[in-house]
């Protein structure tokens, strides 16, 4: 059932979005918009059940997909705080039935924020042979603010299921972000955890991603692309452990540092069965000088050229 309120809040939330705006206006695409703790708009489609409980400072959200549901279009969710200050707590439970396939695009819109704490916890359970692709994009203000993002996700990836979780903050100033994302993968299951972030000024980035390849023939790929400039700092912990037989995995960290930025990558790979295989690759360094000079030879300043190169590196394909 569609509950779309064409009110000022709805308009304001959508006005700052870029690629996703049309999806929230399309009645064929399922969506949910929550501002602080109020549902502003929802549009549900056959096969999914969404329950939202509004609490004092946020919402509890249940998203259930029945067995054998294959959604052609992604579900769009938006968590917004048009208030300049405050706390938003979001507790989400996602349950995906067997043989179901769903993509969810989550937008966190804090463009007008000044002192905001967004605190989320997500519990995900994927049935056998299912797939769940999740992408979270943040819109933050371009001016310095006290925005804090704390997000924790735990996913249980069932037999032969596929789970992908990507997180992106590449536009606006991050503020402070503390992410923990963990997945436990059963036999033949696959997990991909990815991070794309661009820290500027005094932004603080802390990421802990962990994959436990518990099942036989399970696979995991943890990757992060992080850039820091000015005085921004990033600490990235990537932990991939294989306990199942014939599990395979790879950890890949790319971090770009400019000015007085600081980046630290701490990959941990662990294999507890000799039939398993995990590899790791990390690259930390500055923007390539020849790439910079080529753009500067077209009249761009060093800062403009740096931003273009970094945005390119951080682009999801």
């Amino acid at each position, binding site marked *: 059932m569609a509950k779309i309120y064409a009110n000022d809040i709805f308009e304001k939330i959508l006005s700052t979005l870029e690629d996703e705006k049309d999806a929230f206006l399309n009645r064929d695409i399922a969506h949910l918009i929550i501002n602080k703790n109020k549902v502003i708009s929802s549009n549900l489609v056959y096969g999914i059940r969404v329950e939202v409980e509004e609490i004092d400072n946020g919402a509890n959200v249940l998203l259930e997909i029945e067995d054998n549901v294959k959604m052609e279009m992604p579900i769009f969710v938006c968590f917004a705080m048009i208030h300049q200050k405050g706390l938003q707590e979001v507790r989400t439970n996602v349950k995906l039935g067997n043989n179901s396939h769903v993509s969810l695009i989550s937008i966190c819109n804090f463009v007008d924020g000044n002192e905001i704490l967004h605190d989320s916890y997500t519990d995900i359970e994927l049935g056998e042979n299912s797939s769940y692709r999740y992408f979270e994009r943040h819109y933050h203000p371009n001016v310095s603010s006290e925005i804090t993002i704390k997000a924790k996700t735990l996913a249980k990836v069932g037999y032969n299921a596929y789970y992908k979780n990507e997180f992106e903050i590449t536009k606006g100033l991050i503020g402070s972000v503390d992410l923990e994302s963990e997945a436990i993968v059963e036999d033949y299951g696959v997990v991909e955890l990815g991070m794309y972030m661009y820290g500027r000024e005094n932004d603080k980035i802390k990421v802990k991603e962990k994959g436990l390849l518990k099942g036989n023939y399970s696979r995991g790929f943890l990757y992060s692309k992080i850039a820091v400039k000015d005085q921004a700092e990033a600490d990235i912990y990537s932990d991939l452990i294989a306990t199942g037989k014939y599990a395979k995995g790879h950890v890949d960290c790319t971090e770009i540092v400019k000015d007085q930025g600081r980046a630290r990558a701490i990959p941990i790979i662990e294999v507890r069965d000799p039939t398993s295989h995990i590899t790791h690759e990390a690259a930390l360094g500055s923007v*390539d*000088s*020849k*790439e910079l*000079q*080529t*753009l*500067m*030879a*077209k*009249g*761009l*300043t*060093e800062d403009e050229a740096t931003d*273009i*190169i970094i*945005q*390119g*590196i*951080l*682009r999801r*394909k």
Partner: protein
Amino acid sequence: MELLKFKDVRLEKEGKYILQRVNFSINRGEIYAIVGKNGAGKSTIAYTLMGIPSYRDIDGKIIFEGKEINNLDITQRANLGITLLWQEPVRYEGIKVKEYLKLSLKKEDEEKFKEALELVGLNYRSYIDRYVDNSLSGGERKRIELAAIYLLNPKLVILDEPDSGIDIEAINYIFNMLNIFKQKGTTVLLITHSLEVLKRADRGTLICCGVSYIEGDINRLTEYFGTKCPYCEVDYSKILAKEEILNLKKGD
């Protein structure tokens, strides 16, 4: 008429002069070649002119449109109208061809992008949404760079070995672009050690051991390919095939 002048330019790196004394001047609208063997200092002249940071601390003067530009950085020189096609253009992860071309034109213009790509022999539909990354061959990348420079419409374009890494079919598009630059009145500084490329120039300078020791029209320049360099005893007749020199002299 004079657009650019190198006046007694010297550059020292790690205690050694890699440019010992370079003098030449280029007129507006001409294709001017810097020729010489590998390691002679040709690309160093390109980097020095573009203002690449580790090549900026020079003695002597670089004068562009009557003003000394020694103290200007790359962006400032580019904004005066100077640009560079690198011998091996870099790749950019996550940047599409259309976004790359837009950096030159400062706006999106499908017709202009199409025109530029077709001038270098690349099909618009096939390339416009591709990434300027490792998925392109060196030759494709160089042609896209040339298309971007065409859209930039500079006063002076430095082409550093434009034929390197290019196949026989693609080289004709590079030569075609040289003709277009000529028609548009864009001045070209052509850095090369190939006679085929040199033939496209109006005038040039032979450089060896960081010294420009002869300046003149192309026929005059090629005479020196049959002689030894007075500074380092390099025998130019061994660098270029005599047949090529003869063909050039015949105006072939």
